[in-house]
């Protein structure tokens, strides 16, 4: 079996595994990542979102084989030199969490949006977060947090 080579948060790792194993499980088991969560395994809820070549994509059905040669960034990879990403700061400022299980999907979706569209409208923010399920009903704070981050002068 050919080893699988992945680039996660700028770290290269190669290991042997079932090539059909979805990226989600690899991230949690091989890379010790916590942010990406199993929510449905059906690409319906967004709890497992990662930045895949800069796009927010669910990782629960994506085979690790097909994720090779792509840049994979998780929540853990947003922090640079001990400094939080402006979107992380904004989520803290807005206290945008209740249970927090969906926060990964919300932040990853927000980063993908803000990189493409630094000044999104309310409607554009809502569309960007649409794929992520939040059962606690924290949406208004997520939307607020994205607006706070959009005002940040720091690069995304």
């Amino acid at each position: 079996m050919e080893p699988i080579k992945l680039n996660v948060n700028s770290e290269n790792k190669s290991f042997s595994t079932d090539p059909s194993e979805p990226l989600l499980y690899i991230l949690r088991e091989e890379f010790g990542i916590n942010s990406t969560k199993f929510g449905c395994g059906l690409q319906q809820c967004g709890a497992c979102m990662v930045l895949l070549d800069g796009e927010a994509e669910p990782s629960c059905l994506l085979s690790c084989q097909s994720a090779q040669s792509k840049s994979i960034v998780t929540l853990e990879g947003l922090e640079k030199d001990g400094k939080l990403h402006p979107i992380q700061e904004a989520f803290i400022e807005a206290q945008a969490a209740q249970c927090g299980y969906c926060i990964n999907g919300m932040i990853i979706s927000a980063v993908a949006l803000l990189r493409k569209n630094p000044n999104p409208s309310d409607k554009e923010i809502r569309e960007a977060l649409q794929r992520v399920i939040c059962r606690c009903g924290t949406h208004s704070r997520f939307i607020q947090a994205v607006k706070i981050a959009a005002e940040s002068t720091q690069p995304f």
Partner: protein
Amino acid sequence: MDFSRRKFLKSSGQLVLGFQLIPLFSCTGSAKSQPETYSGIPVRPHGDKELIDSWIRLDAAGHVTILTGKQELGQGIRTTLLQMAAEELDVPFEICHIINGDTGQTANEGYTAGSNSVEGSGKAIRQAAAEAKRYMLTLASQTWKEDVANLSVENGIIKNKSNKEISYWKLLEGKHIEGKITGNAIPKSHEEHRLVGKPIARDDIKNLVRGKAHFVHDIRLDGMVHARVLHPPSYGAKLRTYDFSEVSKLEGVLKVIRDGSFIAVIATREYQAVKAWMLMKAISEWETPKIKVSQDSLFEDMKAKSMSPETIENSPDFNSELENASKRVKQEYHRPYHMHASTGPSCAVAEWKSGNLTVWSPTQGVYPLQNSLSDLLGIGTEKIRCIGMPGSGCYGHNGADDVSAEAALIARSFPERPVRLQWMREDEHQWEPYGSAMVIQLEAGIDEEGKIIAWGTNLFSDTHSTRPNGNGGHYISARHLEKALEFRKGGFSGGSYRNAIPLYTIPSKRLLLHNYEGPLRTSALRGLGAYGNIFALESFMDELALAAEMDPIEFRLKNLNDARAKAVLQAVRQKTSWNSAQNAANKGFGVAFSKYKNSASYFAVVAEITVDKTSKTFKLEKLTGVIDSGQCINPDGLKNQTEGGMIQSASWTLLEKVDFDENGVLSTDWNSYPILRSKEVPVVEVHIINRPELAPMGAGEAAQGPVAAAIANAVFNGTGTRVRDLPISAEKVDWNKVN
């Protein structure tokens, strides 16, 4: 003092209010990754609740650890309780830490439910902190031979009038002192508060945004293996044929467990367990009993087949009063089954080591879990330690206890290795206990002045509480075992008629409860019966207001005596410009109110909808709420909880119902059970009426019922159609009535 605790203190040779002796997880295997917890105090059993030490521990490193039997469920209870403790102790908030429910450490505070944590645990911690402070001041006064009245505390440092000072920690000199809760220490008056009432940020959010380990899902213990359970296709199904030899041959599979119709697989890697689960699902065959009630006739069935009614309240003159009314109205309302549908499927970790069981669980109550596991497994509670961990959002009795029991069963047949079990999405959707469907029949009479003179309720519902609470048979897995434990449902709880009695000043009332054994598994979901009851009651209030030809807010105010109830209604009227807003075109506005449980928070809400006749749709644009929870400990926490409750209730009300047919539950994922997402969620605005001079009151469930009725009332106001059958969808509106 508990024997094991005394023995521990003796054998450890410490007379200290806490030194790092045993890290939290060392007694159960080392950890690769754990949610970070302050480990400045040793793990040791709590004493009885009368000891300060059961609630608060000061350690030699100058920190404070608070112990609570309540769980963090995403409601921010850690921050709130820490604020209350730091306030009374007069110590900086930053040096305080908290340990949530752990049978190895914290006092037994039952379940984290009913919006009781601040009223219950908060009160206990506040008292314990006041006692601890008083104890320390007394100690200082004895040491310095000075009157206590001359001493003060700031940031944990006791001072006398000539600025002589000593810190709590120096004063303790590492001694273990078992101060008792005397009841004589008087907590601060609200004028002295400097932390309580402040919007202190939640510490855990800093971890969440960075993806730090936080949830039970994130526990990684050395040697940990992964499990999945294959649940039957429907209730009561029995495994007919099976040959799982293929499954055992799959790469990474360590064991297939079959005990009756309880089936589980253990594998080295999580995905290996998932693959094995998929194969088992494909090859297993079941004998599945049919569900006898069809969804279409559910409400008729409830009325026809419920037990003879229980009289909850009955004014002797009810019938004659109703006869005397100048106007009478009678209506029937329906609530379908709703699910918790937590974002993350339930997860637990269990380890069976040398005959002792440790379970890391997202349960709402570690002690009830310990008792129920003892019943399920037939071992003594002293052999079971339950450590509460945050799970995905918890709004009542969801899959958390079931997954913990299943993890324990699996660990028993695979001892000496920690087992992590997570449910699949369909397990959660199909097997969690739902909020019961309800039929609420209301009948009332008003006099010529618009005063309600008689109010009668006929309520039909299945139980709203089947928590295990010591009974192993309440776990679904227990019913699937070869030697199945019997599920004794027990009595129907008062949860069915929660908030069914109106708070309005009605001289003559009658409430009859018709208990019903429904087709689906039910238990406590946020608010219990209050959601359906308030939806009906507050919809009905608008129908009565219409009959009385009065403005809905005026009508409510006229029938209320409670000043705080009136205040939230008046505030929401003012915040929403209620009177002038009514003139807007293509809009609908609706109001609703309740005092949760008739004993907790007051909440009034206005819903605003936009009506589009062309597309035959309406949209919920905004919810504006006003809440009075007595003394507000943390305004941002209170707002966050309330906003969440409003959006969740809007989702239940607009979209949700559990679908089923004779073969089982059909709502198995987010497509078959849609909930509100970002594009459709309303704007939510929450205003707080703070009453610092009063006791804090539970708030977590206050919004559920009123929001449902406010939406129904707004839809009526905007479209002329009264929808009495949840969910309120555009198809139920008679669009010919819309101007």
